[in-house]
């Protein structure tokens, strides 16, 4: 449980600054800091258990069917990272308190910072690959917010976008790699994965998986060739740089490589890729750090270089190399965070970070000068500092490893070169800022920062020195635990300053001497590099993004090209290809079942359907005729349903047919009556061919299915219809009971369509034709007398029928859908026969609430079963006997069906009545004042 709290606390802590907002600043900082401080204490409280050799784990099911568990662990590696993340995070909070100016939204800043902290802690503690990936993505997102915090700066926006693109793309590769890894290991549980290292290495998918996982790690840890985003992320406020780019974000990739070490390291492929990429990064970063003139730029490139160093060590992969890697993670985090914060202090107090404008600050900022010098000495690997120890271990390992076979001497040589460069840039950083006389005065008169702002730097520098002098006492315990977690077994090692005169010591001395020389000859080197044309990573990146966007648009243009016809054509063509591929795999189109004999009625029906379909298509330019032909098809479809034992469908189709035709007629009134001849003959032939080809595919498919035995689950429904659902009409019981949830969704869609139409009709500009397609003026007879009188007589009858159909629906063909449609048709008939004015006076209420109430009743009926402890939409029924009427059944499904009924009536009327009303003053309109804007013609009313 404590593990859960450690992981959860920073996440909950996000709320604290977010709620406090711009309140009293010191209070905000203090309250925000409490949360990670507790998490840190909780982590430390677990150390005794860890020392006993335990690995603490916590697990709760989340989505077990996907292999996702809320599984956390705390072992030595997690402990190391948690200390870094939470410890340095606290120092950063203190530092940020002084760094940000009071006008800035620091509440938001702290919230982002804690969100980032929470996701880093999540990565360190995850005991499940998918969970780890989730936090991994969360760090990408929250770092985007942090890097782009000064969103008014174009640089910050671009830098944030670049970081997000690179790390996000790497995250996707990582997900693919994790899925493969989980598949190979048989589980996403980290324990299982770590234990099945041999099986993973032996799997043929191993190389693909390794490359994908490494892509994720390399992008995050800014390894060559993905290093370019990190220097541009320096547009962030300095506390962010100090946190993300020293201790946390960029270490996530390193962490991943260390965490998965037992599972995926150990192959030749791993050693070669990781150590070579690491070496390239080490040299690349160090070389460019030497020529940057921006303080943070130097630090950014040196971070890239140090990350390369750690990567090389992990690539070498011997137990001692792992110890060195972990040790350097710790050391780099301390001195680099200190240096970043010093750079921020210099920036804060002088107003610039440009080396050209700085110099001689030793006089005005003596303490900061001392601190920075000490931290830089650690970075350069000067003896008696922590950086020296891990760098010497690094040299030792490069000498010892046989990674490159006969060329293995190359690695120590390159490592020494890296060491030389790192001495040179460290020296340059310190000397140019503090000791060299200033060439220009900085924008502000420099002075020492407030002591509390310097305090985090002081703490970190003291750590650098103490660890450097007493490594055995200070670091062995922690490193021992972490190494044990990475290697899976304990490994004895001994940290000391003095190993005697040996090759690594020589390499260190060479690095110091030649590094000093290199800085001394720095101006020559700079002239040499200036002969090369520099590549601006940001411009290249932005251009790549623009090119990508251009090609994406071109692709879309080819497929869609602003033409629905072309798009439809391509869609149908691909459907045709898929259908043909599917059909080609059937050996015999006719299945085992023979044809049933054809009777005359069926022949007639089929003939009418085919005729109606062809006529609809053939006459489509004469829209009214085409519509009439369509209604023939609709009618015969209803008859087809009746013929093949689907009375419910026949009733539904019939009533839907009526409302559809009224709707389309009404809409046609507002649209052109004829379609102009505009398709070229070629296009017509093409369309006919395409449509016929698809028709053939559908017919063949249909025939193939119809002549084959099918397995159906319907026996269950038929058997349980009465005992389970309380009704004999299986179709209705399926609708309101077995598959009630589907129906609920369906009526919701129906009501939504009604609402959407209501909105679309709102303030619609109308084209009201004066005459029909043939130029005849509309008939002046307003409402035919016969229709008027019959509709009046019909209304109560129709309502009675619909009530009857509704009530019997559970046992005989009928039900809410059909009854609702009948009611709607009856009411619409009234509108048609009497006009909107007349009907509006008598049906003076909006239909939207009817539909909404219908959906609500259905939903509440479903929820009601919760009250009795049953799952959603469980139905109950009993029998009631009423005098005169007899025994009938009362089921909760009936109430559900009532909801369906109301939803159908409401939605249908909302669609049709509102459409009919658009020519009248009752038309849907948001603001009544719009009425004058386009007053419809007074003598035109709904048909």
């Amino acid at each position, binding site marked *: 449980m404590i593990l859960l709290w450690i992981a959860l606390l920073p996440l909950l802590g996000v709320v604290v600054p977010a709620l406090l907002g711009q309140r009293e600043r010191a209070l905000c900082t203090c309250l925000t800091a409490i949360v990670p401080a507790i998490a840190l204490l909780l982590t430390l409280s677990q150390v005794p258990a860890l020392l006993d050799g335990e690995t603490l784990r916590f697990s709760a099911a989340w989505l077990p069917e996907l292999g996702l568990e809320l599984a956390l662990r705390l072992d030595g590696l997690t402990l190391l990272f948690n200390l870094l993340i939470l410890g340095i995070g606290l120092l950063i909070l203190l530092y940020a308190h002084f760094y940000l100016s009071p006008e800035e939204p620091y509440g938001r800043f702290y919230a982002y910072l804690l969100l980032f902290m929470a996701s880093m802690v999540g990565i360190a503690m995850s005991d499940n690959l998918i969970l780890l990936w989730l936090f991994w993505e969360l760090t990408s997102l929250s770092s985007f917010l942090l890097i782009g915090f000064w969103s008014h700066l174009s640089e910050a926006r671009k830098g944030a976008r670049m970081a997000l693109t690179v790390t996000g793309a790497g995250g996707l590769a990582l997900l693919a790699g994790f899925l493969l890894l989980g598949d190979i290991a048989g589980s996403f549980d980290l324990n299982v994965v770590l234990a099945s290292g041999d099986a993973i290495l032996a799997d043929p998918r191993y190389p693909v998986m390794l490359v994908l996982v490494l892509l994720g790690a390399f992008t995050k840890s800014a390894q060559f060739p993905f290093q370019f985003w990190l220097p541009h992320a320096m547009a962030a406020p300095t506390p962010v740089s100090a946190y993300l780019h020293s201790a946390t974000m960029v270490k996530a990739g390193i962490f991943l490589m260390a965490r998965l070490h037992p599972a995926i390291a150990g192959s030749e492929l791993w050693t070669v890729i990781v150590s070579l990429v690491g070496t390239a990064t080490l040299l690349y970063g160090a070389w460019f750090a030497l020529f940057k003139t921006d303080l943070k730029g130097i630090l950014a490139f040196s971070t890239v270089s140090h990350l390369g160093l750690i990567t090389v060590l992990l690539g070498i992969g011997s137990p001692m190399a792992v110890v060195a890697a972990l040790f350097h993670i710790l050391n780099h985090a301390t001195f680099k965070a200190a240096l970043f914060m010093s750079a921020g202090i210099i920036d804060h107090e002088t107003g610039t970070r440009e080396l050209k404008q700085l110099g001689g600050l030793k006089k005005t900022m003596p303490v900061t000068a001392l601190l920075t010098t000490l931290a830089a000495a650690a970075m350069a690997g000067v003896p008696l500092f922590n950086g020296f120890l891990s760098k010497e271990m690094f040299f030792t390992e490069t000498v010892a490893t046989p990674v490159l076979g006969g060329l293995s001497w190359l690695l120590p040589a390159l490592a020494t070169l890296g060491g030389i460069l790192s001495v040179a840039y460290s020296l340059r950083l310190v000397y140019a800022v503090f000791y060299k006389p200033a060439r220009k005065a900085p924008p502000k008169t420099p002075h020492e920062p407030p002591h509390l702002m310097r305090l985090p730097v002081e703490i970190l520098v003291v750590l650098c020195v103490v660890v450097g002098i007493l490594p055995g006492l200070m670091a062995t315990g922690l490193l021992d635990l972490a190494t044990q977690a990475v290697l899976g077994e304990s490994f004895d090692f001994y940290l000391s300053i003095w190993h005697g005169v040996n090759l690594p010591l020589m390499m260190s001395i060479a690095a110091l001497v030649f590094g000093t020389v290199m800085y001394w000859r720095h101006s020559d080197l700079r002239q040499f590099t200036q002969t090369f044309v520099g590549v601006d990573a940001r411009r290249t990146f932005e251009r790549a993004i623009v090119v990508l966007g251009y090609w994406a648009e071109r692709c879309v243009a080819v497929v869609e090209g602003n033409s629905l016809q072309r798009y439809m054509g391509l869609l149908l063509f691909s459907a045709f290809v898929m259908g043909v591929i599917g059909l080609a795999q059937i050996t015999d189109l006719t299945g085992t079942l023979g044809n049933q004999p054809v009777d005359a009625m069926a022949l007639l029906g089929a003939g009418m359907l085919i005729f109606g379909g062809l006529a609809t298509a053939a006459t489509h330019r004469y829209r009214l005729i085409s519509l009439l032909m369509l209604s023939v098809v609709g009618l015969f479809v209803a008859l*087809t349903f009746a013929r093949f034992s689907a009375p419910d469908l026949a009733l539904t189709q019939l009533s839907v047919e009526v409302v559809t035709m009224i709707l389309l007629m009404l809409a046609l009134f507002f649209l052109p009556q004829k379609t102009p001849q505009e398709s070229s003959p070629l296009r017509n032939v093409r369309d006919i061919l395409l449509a016929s080809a698809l028709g053939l595919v559908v017919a063949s498919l249909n025939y193939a299915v119809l002549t084959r035995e099918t397995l159906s689950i319907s026996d269950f429904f038929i058997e349980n219809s009465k005992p389970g659902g309380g009704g004999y009409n299986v179709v209705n019981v399926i609708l309101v009971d077995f598959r009630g949830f589907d129906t609920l969704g369906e009526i919701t869609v129906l009501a939504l369509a009604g609402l959407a139409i209501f909105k679309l009709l709102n303030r619609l*500009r109308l084209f009201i034709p004066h005459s029909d397609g043939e130029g005849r003026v509309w008939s002046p007879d307003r409402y035919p007398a016969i229709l008027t009188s019959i509709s009046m007589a019909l209304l109560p009858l129709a309502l009675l029928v619909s009530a009857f159909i509704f009530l019997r629906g559970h046992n005989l063909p009928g039900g809410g859908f059909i009854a609702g449609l009948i009611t709607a048709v009856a009411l619409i008939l009234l509108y048609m026969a009497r006009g909107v004015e007349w009907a509006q006076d008598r049906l003076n209420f909006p239909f939207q609430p009817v539909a909404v109430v219908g959906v609500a009743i259905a939903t509440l009926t479903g929820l009601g079963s919760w009250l009795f402890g049953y799952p959603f939409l469980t139905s109950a029924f009993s029998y009631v006997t009423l005098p005169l009427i007899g025994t009938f059944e009362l089921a909760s499904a009936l109430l559900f069906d009532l909801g369906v009924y109301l939803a159908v009536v409401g939605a249908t009327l909302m669609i049709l009545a509102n459409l009919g009303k658009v020519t009248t003053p009752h038309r849907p309109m948001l603001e009544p004042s719009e009425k004058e804007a386009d007053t419809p013609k007074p003598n035109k009313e709904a048909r």
Partner: protein
Amino acid sequence: MEMLYAITTGVLTACGLYLTLRGRTFPVVVGLTLLSYAVNLFLFSMGGLTTDGAALANRDGHFADPLPQALVLTAIVIGFAMTAFVVILAMRARSEAGNDHVDGKKEIRE
């Protein structure tokens, strides 16, 4: 019978698809409606063609498959909602664009 049914479905599909490839909104709406008839017939037939077998559990004899029927029933109603939405979208498009071309273009060939 099965072959006749399949041919009918195929013809209706072809006619509906031909209309959806037209360039004006109203024929496309009619085409979609026709297509939804064809699709409903197709789906309905997935349970086989049964004569005199309405799925009423208090009857004896063989039953038509009720499941495709239930699915098609809601499909019919949803199809109506879809048609209504599309046709009113067409009206709205005409009112916004001034013509009833599916791409909202000005007349090209006239």
